[in-house]
C-alpha cells in the first residue's frame, strides 16, 4: 500500500519535471523540481521558512488543544441528559456547516487580526468534526462494555475515562485526522488574509509574500513543505498511533 503510494508520487514528480522542462511553460510560473528544491534548501538555510513553519505549527497545536478540550467537555455534557444532548446537537447543526473563513470579518471585528484571531478560527474548524466523532464513538460503545464497567464499580467520569474513551478511540483518531487537515486549511487561509503580525505571519503569509515577490519557486517550496508535514503527520504519526492502539487491539475495522 505504502509502496504503491510512493510509486505514484514519483510518477507525479516525473510528470511535473517533464512539463517544466518541455520548454512550453515559463520557469517563472512553472519552476522545475531542481529550482523548487534549491529554493526550499536556501529558504530553510536562511531560517525564515522554518521559523514561519514553527510559528504556524505552534498555533495549530494551540488550536487543536483548545478544540479538543472543548469537544470533550461538550461531548460529556451532551451525555448528561436529553436537554443537554439536544442543546449540543443544536450547536453542531448551527456551527458545523459554517466555514471558518466566512467568520473572518466578524473575528477581525471582535479579536482584531492578531494571533488569537487565528487560534479562534482553528478552534472553530477543529471543534465540530471532533465533537461529532467523539459523540459517534460514545454511541457506538457496546452496552456490554459499560455493563462490565458498572459491574466492577465504575461510575460517572471514571466510566467515561476508562470505558467510553478507549472504546471510542477508532472514532477519536479519525476525528483527529479530519481536525488536523481542517486546521491546516484554516490556518493557511487565515494567515494569508491577516498578514504578518510583528514580523511573523506563518506559512500562509510566507506563501503569499513569495507570490508578491514573484518568487514562484519559493512559493512551491513552501507548498512542498506543507505537503511533507502533512505526509509526516498522516503516515508516520497517525500510523504509529493506530498501530500501537486500535490495530493492536483488533478494533481498527470499525
Amino acid at each position, binding site marked *: 500500500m505504502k509502496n504503491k503510494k510512493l510509486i505514484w508520487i514519483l510518477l507525479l514528480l516525473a510528470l511535473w519535471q517533464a512539463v517544466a522542462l518541455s520548454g512550453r511553460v515559463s520557469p517563472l510560473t512553472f519552476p522545475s523540481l531542481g529550482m523548487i528544491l534549491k529554493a526550499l534548501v536556501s529558504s530553510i538555510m536562511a531560517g525564515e521558512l522554518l521559523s514561519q513553519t514553527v510559528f504556524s505549527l505552534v498555533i495549530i497545536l494551540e488550536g487543536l488543544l483548545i478544540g479538543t478540550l472543548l469537544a470533550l467537555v461538550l461531548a460529556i455534557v451532551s451525555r448528561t441528559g436529553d436537554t443537554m444532548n439536544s442543546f449540543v446537537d443544536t450547536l453542531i447543526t448551527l456551527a458545523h456547516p459554517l466555514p471558518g473563513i466566512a467568520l473572518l470579518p466578524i473575528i477581525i471585528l471582535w479579536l482584531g487580526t492578531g494571533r488569537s484571531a487565528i487560534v479562534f478560527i482553528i478552534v472553530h474548524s477543529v471543534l465540530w468534526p471532533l465533537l461529532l466523532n467523539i459523540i459517534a464513538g460514545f454511541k457506538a460503545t457496546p452496552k*456490554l462494555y459499560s*455493563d462490565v464497567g*458498572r*459491574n*466492577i464499580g465504575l461510575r460517572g467520569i471514571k466510566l467515561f475515562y476508562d470505558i467510553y474513551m478507549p472504546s471510542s478511540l477508532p472514532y477519536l483518531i479519525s476525528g483527529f485526522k479530519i481536525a488536523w487537515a481542517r486546521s491546516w486549511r484554516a490556518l493557511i487561509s487565515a494567515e494569508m488574509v491577516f498578514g504578518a503580525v510583528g514580523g511573523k505571519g506563518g506559512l500562509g503569509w510566507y506563501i503569499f509574500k513569495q507570490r508578491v515577490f514573484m518568487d514562484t519557486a519559493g512559493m512551491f517550496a513552501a507548498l512542498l513543505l506543507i505537503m511533507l508535514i502533512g505526509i509526516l503527520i498522516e503516515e508516520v504519526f497517525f500510523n504509529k498511533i493506530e498501530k500501537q492502539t486500535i490495530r493492536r*487491539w483488533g478494533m481498527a475495522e470499525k
Partner: protein
Amino acid sequence: MIELKEVNKSFKRDQDTLKVLENISFTVEKGEILCILGASGSGKSTLLRLMGGFDFCDSGSISIGSEAVVSPSPDSILIFQDFNQLLPWKTVLQNVIYPMKVNKKYGSEQQRRDRAMEYLEMVQLADFYNAYPHQLSGGMKQRAAIARALALEPSILLMDEPFGSLDALTRQSLQELLLQIWKRAGVTIIFVTHDIQEAIILADRIIVMDNKPGRIKDIVQNSFDRPRDISGGDYLELYHRLYSMLSV
C-alpha cells in the same frame, strides 16, 4: 440471602409487549449454588440481569440481604453469556487485574498481578496472559472472563451459561474448579445453563423455567453428596425428571 418477590418483566416490541418473566419468586441462601435450567428464550439471561441490577423489573422486588438491588455492584459479578465481555484494549492479564485495581483490593499491584496469574493458570490461560482478547477463541475469552470474576472474589457470582462454548473435558475441569472455589470462598452462585447434567453436577437446587412467558415450573432439590459422579444410577432418575419437565 437473595430474595425475588413476584418479579415481572416484559419488553416493548414495535406494537405489542413481550412478556418475558412472569411472577418469579424464589430465594437463594448464602453459599448456595442455584442452577436455572430452561430452554432458549425462556428468560434466563433477563432474570440474571435483573438480579445483577443491570435492568429493572416492571413489578415485584429483588433484594440482597435487606437491601433492594438498584444498580450493579462489584460484590455481585455477572459473567455474561456474550463472548466479547473482555475489554479489547487490555491484555488478558490486565483484564483480570483491572477490576481488583478499581476496587483497591489485595494491597499492591504486584500482589494483584500474582493473584491474576494464579487465576489465569487455573483456567489454563497462563500462556496467553499477554495476548489481547481479539487473539483468543470464544471459549478462551469466556475462561478469561471467568478468571476475572473469580479473582475479584465477589460474594455473589451470576453466571450465564459460562461453559456453554467449551469442549466436554475443559467444561468438566472448570466445573471442578468452580466447586473448589465455592468450597473455599463460600460464594453464592446463580448458574444459568440449559445442560441438565451440568445442573445436576453443580446445583444445590435447580429452578426449571417454563417458556413463553418465563415462569418457574418447579424448584428441584438436589442433595446428592459431592463430588458427584453422574454416571451412577441414582442420578438418572433426577435427570429424567428434569428432562421431562423441560420437554413438556
